[in-house]
């Protein structure tokens, strides 16, 4: 499989004045193969959304590179770059309430991309919009309605139709289901799965719901405080976590099974994610890690490839335990 997207040592700082910076994303390298779904998990403040947005150029990169189909993407996007790339890369946003313009009709919202990028006739735009609304499970005559007339699940479908109408190859889904009810989450997940199959999409699926990420993703990447701590096949990362932080995350995720929950010891760890302004030296997880060693507080661990029984590299972990 060839890589559709190659992210190398991507870093994003935000300057917040008085010589302070937020280290939102630091030296994250991640390759995404064609037609692959990579799940990105982590606590709030771990930089997963910033990573997704920086990859798409919605934030300027502080350093590092992003290659799309072996072509280097610009460090800082100009409006022409957005115009060129929007047809191949799109984003679905987290909050279906604030990501739709309340003063535009659904037809205008969904059809806008097509109008701007392809300079199509308005009849064609209308036809395509109707087609996409039906494809995501809404009706063509919803076109003249406004966002407030729809429920959260329906709005999320509108967001999906807006992203898909340009038929992109790569889509960043930033917590597309976390604002929805359980019964509706499954509707949206299944819709994304169908679209992925029929359009050959490649997805970066950002979420904090570990069970859902394991369910949808081929590979799972775990971020903590701006850096990538573990990446591997989704099932293997979930069922056999190597990094202490991944262990804690998986252990804290309550399973809908009372017997299992009763038999399982609590794995709650003390402390909270530190501020990304004053990032500690060494491993960023060291001050909360149950397995912390002397070296962790001094040297920043690098991603180490781990071999499986067949000698193939299928997992990378950034932890001194595996050196």
């Amino acid at each position: 499989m060839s890589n559709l997207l190659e992210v190398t040592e991507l870093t994003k700082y935000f300057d917040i004045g008085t010589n302070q910076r937020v280290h939102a994303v630091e030296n994250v390298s991640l390759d995404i193969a064609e037609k692959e779904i990579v799940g990105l998990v982590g606590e709030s403040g771990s930089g997963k959304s910033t990573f997704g947005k920086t990859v798409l150029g919605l934030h300027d990169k502080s350093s590092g590179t992003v290659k799309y189909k072996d072509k280097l993407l610009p460090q800082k996007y100009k409006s022409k770059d957005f115009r060129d790339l929007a047809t191949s890369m799109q984003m679905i946003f987290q909050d279906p309430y604030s990501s739709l313009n309340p003063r535009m009709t659904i037809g205008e919202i969904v059809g806008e991309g097509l109008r701007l990028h392809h300079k199509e006739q308005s009849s064609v735009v209308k036809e395509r919009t109707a087609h996409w609304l039906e494809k995501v499970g809404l009706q063509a005559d919803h076109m003249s309605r406004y966002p407030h007339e729809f429920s959260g699940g329906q709005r999320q479908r509108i967001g999906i139709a807006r992203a898909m109408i340009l038929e992109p190859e790569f889509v960043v889904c930033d917590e597309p289901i976390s604002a929805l009810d359980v019964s509706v989450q499954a509707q949206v997940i299944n819709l994304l799965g169908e679209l992925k199959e029929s359009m050959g999409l490649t997805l970066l699926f950002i979420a904090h719901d570990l069970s859902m990420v394991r369910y949808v993703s081929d590979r799972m990447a775990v971020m903590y405080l701006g850096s990538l701590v573990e990446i591997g096949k989704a099932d293997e990362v979930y069922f056999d976590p190597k990094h202490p932080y991944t262990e804690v995350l998986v252990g804290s995720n309550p399973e809908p099974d009372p017997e299992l929950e009763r038999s399982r010891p609590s794995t709650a760890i003390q402390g909270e994610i530190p501020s990304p302004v004053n990032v500690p030296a060494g491993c960023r997880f060291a001050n909360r890690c149950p397995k912390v060693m002397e070296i962790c507080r001094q040297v920043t661990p690098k991603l180490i490839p781990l071999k499986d029984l067949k000698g193939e590299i299928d997992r990378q972990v950034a932890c001194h335990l595996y050196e």
Partner: protein
Amino acid sequence: MSSSAGATAENNDVLLEVENLGVEFDTYGGVVQAVRGVSFSVAEGQTLAIVGESGCGKSVTVQSMMGLIPMPPGRIVSGSAKLKGYQILGRPIVNGNDIRGSEIGMIFQDPMTSLNPTMTIGDQIAEPLQVHRGYSYKQAFAEAIRLLEMSKIPEATKRAKQYPFEFSGGMLQRAMIAMAIACKPSILVADEPTTALDVTIQAQILDLLQDLQKETGMAVILITHDLGVVARMADEVAVMYAGKIVEHGSVDDVFYRSAHPYTLGLKEAMPTNDPSLQHELKPIEGSPPDLFSPPEGCGYCARCPFAMQICNRQQPNDSFLTDHHFSRCWLHDSGARNKPDQLFFKDAAS
């Protein structure tokens, strides 16, 4: 047993008994029947989880008990709620004599907006002690520090003098718990206490709630939509849909012997993490009914894969599978011919 009696708790130390509670709201669009005849009881030291999707009436149920429903536009149309035998529903709110805060403590979903930004955390925790227990400010503040320590907030003395904006989300939720348990309530109502928090912080808060429950012996009513949290915390589970409790039983009954199609639907819409039980996610198609004009029959009828003709016309009664487990569904009626394998039926119990 009549349909309004609800499931009774296992032992006789019933702390709270809610019967046939009905709540309506007047809105510009008409009258919303948010809660339509809810009955349940909570025993001492027990944890009852109320599960359901947004808009099913789970928060309104407890808020009406607490006197937190603004009236108007809200209205309690029927039912009673008795705490230790005393009627608590619809009583006028008088500071100091109130049950709210002294007998029933409450924590809310969003700790950022539920605390007063202009008061220090310590003062806010001390307030109910001064109001309900007649403590002096000094005594109350000292007690507040002890409560913060109980909620495992480090450097409690220093933290008590800080304002909410200086706390993180998880710490604020701990402070809110400290405030809720200040007067040693016999019931703690937790309305989605961890929905706004990360899983690691959620695990800490759930541990804390369990520890405090062990120490103080209080009962907990936990409102949530996360079945994982229910599995972890609850003794009893009530599943709500469209303003009614559709299934009620022990946590094992509801998870392993689900008897209502909606409970089954919720379970199948979530990914299981048991690799041997891998299943396709089965969404519940459609959306909940409009409570401006609730359907004549079962509220779940339009989304139910097993719906029969009668479901659309007539409300089902509570069918008791065991003494403490009921399901409000026509499939349990002796007249129902097709009984889906996925559901639990009374015949299977014997």
